[in-house]
C-alpha cells in the first residue's frame, strides 16, 4: 500500500492541469467535481498509505520511494523521492482531509465567482505543493514545496486582483516569505556543506551519530537559518506581518492557509529536523522565546480587533506561537498534536466566519453584526464548538493539546514560558468569546437590507462545518494524558531517546509542578473559564462597559487596535528616514517608481536603484569613463594587492 504514495501527489496535480487547461470550457459543476475528486482520491490514498504504515512494526515505520534522480553533480545528490513516516503520515491526513472539506465548502462559497476554475486550479496546486513539502525525502524537495506553497498563496491571496488591497497583500505575503526562504536555502546549503548530503535519513543519521557536538556553531547556524525560514512561513515575529493581510483572499483560502497548509509548514519543518534542533540548545531557546512572545503578542492584538477574520488571523499567529513554544522546549509531539487540533478548529472557525460573511452579504465588521444565533443556527452551533475548542475547555480538542503545551512549557521550560502560556490562554478565551458574543448574541446591528438577505448557507458549506465540528470535539482524545496515542505513534520520528526523555521529562515536570498534572489542568481550565466570564460580562451583560474601558485605557486600546504600530514602525524605520534624504537629493525624481515597490525594504532598494540608474547618463563618453575607471581599479588590484 505504501507504494501508492506517489498517487497522493499525482491526483491534485492532475486536477490542477485539467482545470488549468480546460476549466474555462467546462461547466462549473464539472470543475468542482474534478477538484474535489482529485483531493478526495488523494485523501483515500492517504488513508491507505497511513494504514499501510500502521501495519508495520513501530520501529520500521519509515518508507522511502525514489521517483527519479533529480540533481546529481559530483558528490551532490538530490533525488526526487518521497518519504512516509508517522510524522508525514499524520500531515498528509491533515492536509488532504481538511483540504477536502475546504474544497467542498468552496464549491458553495465560490459558486458565483467568475474565476471559478482558476480558483480550483490554484487550490489543487496549493494542496499539491503542501503535500510535496510534507512528503519530500530531502531538504531540497522540501524547499521546492516550500517555495511553491508561497507562490500559490500569492496567487490565491491576490485572487480578487481587482481589489488593490488584495494584490498588495499577495505581494506582501510573497515577498515576506521570500525573506524567510532566503534563510532556508542558505541553511540547506550549509547542511550540504556540513553533512555532504541533503537527504533527511542521511543527515539525521549523521547527526544522531554525533558528527557534531551539542551546541556546535555549524549546527546552531543551520538551525537558526532554517528557523528563519519557519518564521516567514509560519508567521512568527518578526516576519508575521503578512498573515493578517492574507485574509484579503477568499475565506476558504484563509482557512486553507491558516489551518491545513502553509503556516504549519514551519512547525512541520522544525519537527522534521528535531534531531538537529535538539543538538543546538541555543536555537531551541530562541525558538521557544519567539514562540512564546509571538503567542502573547498576537493574542493581545486579537483582543480589540473588530474585523471577524482579523481576529481569527491573529489567533492563528498566537496558536502557531504555542506550537513553536512546544517545539522550542523539546515537546515536538505536543507541537504536532496542537498543529492537528488547531487544523480542525481553525478550519472550522474560518469556514464558519465565511458562512457568517456569506450570510451578511460580505460584511466583515463585527460591530455591524450581532444576534445571528437565531438566523444561522448550524453555523452558530458549529462555531460555538470551535470557539470552545480553541478556548481550551475540556473535553474539546483544543484543551488537550494546549494543556499539554502549557504543561510541557513548565516541565521542560521555565516558569516564564508557563506564565506566558497561561496569560495567552486567558486572552484567547476572552477574544474568541468576545467574537462569538458580538457576532451571534445580543441585538442585531445590521441594516435591514442585510437582514432581509440573511440566510443559512447551502449544504455544501454546512456539511464541512459539521464534520469539522465533530473533529474539533473528539480529536483531542488522540492525545489524552495517560493513553497518549499521538506520542506513541510519533515516537519513532522524535527518536527513541526523545520519546524517553519526553516521558521522563513529563514525570519530572509533574514532580516539579507539585506532583499533580490535574492541578495544572484545573488551573488552565479555570483560566479559560475566567476569560469566557470576562467576555460574557463585558459583551453580554454590560455592553456599554467596553467603551468606557476603552476610554479609560485609551493608550493601551489604541496601541492594540493599531497592532502595536508595527507596520508603521517598519515604515518609519526603513522608508521615511531614507526617503527624506532621497527626496532632498532627487527632488524631481518621480513617485512612479515607488508605486512598483512593495514594502519598506523594496522601497529602500528601489531608491538605490533610482540613484544608480542616474549613472546611466546616455553619454558614450561617460560609459567609456566607467570602463577606464574599472580598468584602473582592476590593474591596481592586481598589481598592488599581493
Amino acid at each position: 500500500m505504501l507504494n501508492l504514495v506517489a498517487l497522493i501527489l499525482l491526483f491534485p496535480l492532475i486536477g490542477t492541469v485539467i482545470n488549468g487547461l480546460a476549466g474555462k470550457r467546462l461547466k462549473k459543476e464539472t470543475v468542482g467535481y474534478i477538484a474535489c475528486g482529485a483531493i478526495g482520491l488523494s485523501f483515500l490514498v492517504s488513508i491507505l498509505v497511513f494504514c499501510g504504515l500502521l501495519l508495520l512494526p513501530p520501529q520500521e515505520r519509515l518508507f522511502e520511494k525514489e521517483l527519479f534522480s533529480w540533481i546529481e553533480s559530483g558528490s551532490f545528490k538530490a533525488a526526487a523521492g518521497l518519504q512516509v513516516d508517522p510524522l508525514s503520515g499524520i500531515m498528509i491526513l491533515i492536509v488532504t482531509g481538511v483540504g477536502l472539506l475546504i474544497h467542498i465548502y468552496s464549491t458553495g462559497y465560490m459558486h458565483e465567482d467568475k474565476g471559478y476554475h482558476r480558483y480550483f486550479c490554484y487550490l489543487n496546486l496549493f494542496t499539491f505543493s503542501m503535500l510535496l513539502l510534507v512528503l519530500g525525502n530531502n531538504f531540497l524537495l522540501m524547499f521546492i514545496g516550500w517555495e511553491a506553497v508561497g507562490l500559490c498563496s500569492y496567487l490565491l491571496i491576490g485572487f480578487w486582483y481587482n481589489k488593490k488591497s488584495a494584490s498588495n497583500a499577495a505581494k506582501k505575503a510573497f515577498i515576506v516569505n521570500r525573506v524567510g526562504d532566503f534563510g532556508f536555502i542558505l541553511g540547506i546549503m550549509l547542511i550540504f556543506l556540513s553533512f555532504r548530503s541533503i537527504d533527511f535519513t542521511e543527515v539525521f543519521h549523521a547527526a544522531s551519530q554525533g558528527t557534531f557536538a551539542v551546541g556546535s556553531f555549524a549546527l546552531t547556524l543551520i538551525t537558526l537559518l532554517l528557523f528563519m525560514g519557519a518564521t516567514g512561513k509560519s508567521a512568527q515575529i518578526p516576519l508575521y506581518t503578512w498573515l493578517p493581510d492574507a485574509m484579503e483572499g477568499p475565506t476558504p483560502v484563509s482557512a486553507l492557509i491558516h489551518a491545513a497548509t502553509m503556516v504549519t509548514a514551519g512547525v512541520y519543518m522544525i519537527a522534521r529536523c528535531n534531531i538537529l534542533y535538539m543538538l543546538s540548545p541555543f536555537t531551541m531557546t530562541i525558538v521557544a522565546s519567539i514562540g512564546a512572545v509571538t503567542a502573547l503578542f498576537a493574542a493581545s492584538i486579537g483582543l480589540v480587533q473588530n474585523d471577524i477574520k482579523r481576529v481569527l488571523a491573529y489567533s492563528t499567529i498566537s496558536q502557531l506561537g504555542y506550537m513553536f513554544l512546544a517545539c522550542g522546549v523539546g515537546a515536538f509531539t505536543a507541537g504536532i498534536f496542537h498543529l492537528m487540533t488547531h487544523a480542525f478548529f481553525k478550519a472550522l472557525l474560518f469556514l464558519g466566519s465565511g458562512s457568517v460573511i456569506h450570510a451578511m452579504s460580505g460584511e466583515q465588521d463585527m460591530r455591524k453584526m450581532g444576534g445571528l444565533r437565531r438566523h444561522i443556527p448550524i453555523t452558530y452551533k458549529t462555531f460555538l464548538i470551535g470557539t470552545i475548542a480553541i478556548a481550551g475547555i475540556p473535553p474539546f480538542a483544543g484543551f488537550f493539546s494546549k494543556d499539554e503545551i502549557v504543561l510541557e512549557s513548565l516541565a521542560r521550560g521555565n516558569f516564564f514560558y508557563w506564565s506566558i502560556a497561561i496569560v495567552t490562554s486567558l486572552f484567547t478565551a476572552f477574544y474568541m468569546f468576545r467574537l462569538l458574543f458580538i457576532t451571534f448574541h445580543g441585538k442585531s446591528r445590521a441594516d435591514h437590507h442585510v437582514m432581509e438577505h440573511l440566510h443559512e448557507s447551502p449544504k455544501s458549506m454546512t456539511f464541512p462545518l459539521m464534520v469539522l465540528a465533530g473533529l474539533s470535539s473528539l480529536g483531542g482524545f488522540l492525545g489524552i494524558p495517560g493513553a497518549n496515542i499521538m506520542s506513541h505513534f510519533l515516537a519513532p520520528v522524535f527518536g527513541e531517546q526523545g520519546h524517553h526523555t519526553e516521558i521522563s521529562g513529563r514525570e519530572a515536570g509533574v514532580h516539579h509542578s507539585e506532583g499533580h498534572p490535574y492541578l495544572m489542568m484545573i488551573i488552565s481550565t479555570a483560566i479559560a473559564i475566567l476569560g469566557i466570564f470576562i467576555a460574557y460580562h463585558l459583551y453580554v451583560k454590560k455592553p456599554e462597559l467596553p467603551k468606557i474601558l476603552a476610554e479609560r485605557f485609551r493608550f493601551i486600546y489604541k496601541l492594540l487596535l493599531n497592532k502595536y504600530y508595527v507596520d508603521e514602525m517598519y515604515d518609519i524605520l526603513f522608508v521615511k528616514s531614507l526617503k527624506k534624504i532621497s527626496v532632498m537629493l532627487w527632488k524631481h525624481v518621480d513617485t512612479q517608481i515607488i508605486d512598483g515597490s512593495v514594502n519598506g525594504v523594496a522601497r529602500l532598494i528601489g531608491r538605490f536603484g533610482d540613484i544608480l540608474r542616474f549613472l546611466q547618463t546616455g553619454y558614450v563618453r561617460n560609459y567609456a569613463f566607467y570602463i577606464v575607471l574599472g580598468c584602473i581599479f582592476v590593474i591596481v588590484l592586481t598589481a598592488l594587492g599581493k
Partner: protein
Amino acid sequence: MITLTHYLVLSAILFTLGVIGVLIRRNAIIIFMCIELMLNAVNISFVACAHYLNSMQGQLFVFFTMTVAAAEAAVGLAIIVAVFRNKETVNIDDINIMKW
C-alpha cells in the same frame, strides 16, 4: 641601447593618449580615430615583443589586427553615416535619447 621597455613605454603613452581622446572628444569620427590610435599602440607593443623574443607570432597578430581594424573602420563609418542621415550630427553628446 633601445630596449623592449622603451617600446612598451611608447606604446603605453600612445595608448593612454588614445584613451584620453575617447574620453574628451565629442565628434564620433575623432573618437573612432582615437580608438585606432589605441590599436596602433597595441601593435607597437606586439611587434616590439616579437622582435625581442625572436618570435614571429607578434607580427602575425598585428597583421590580423590591421585587418580587423579595416573591417571595423568600414562598419564604424557606415554606422556613423547612418546616424548622420537621421540626426544630422556626429556629436555623440547629442546622441543620447536612451538613458536611465
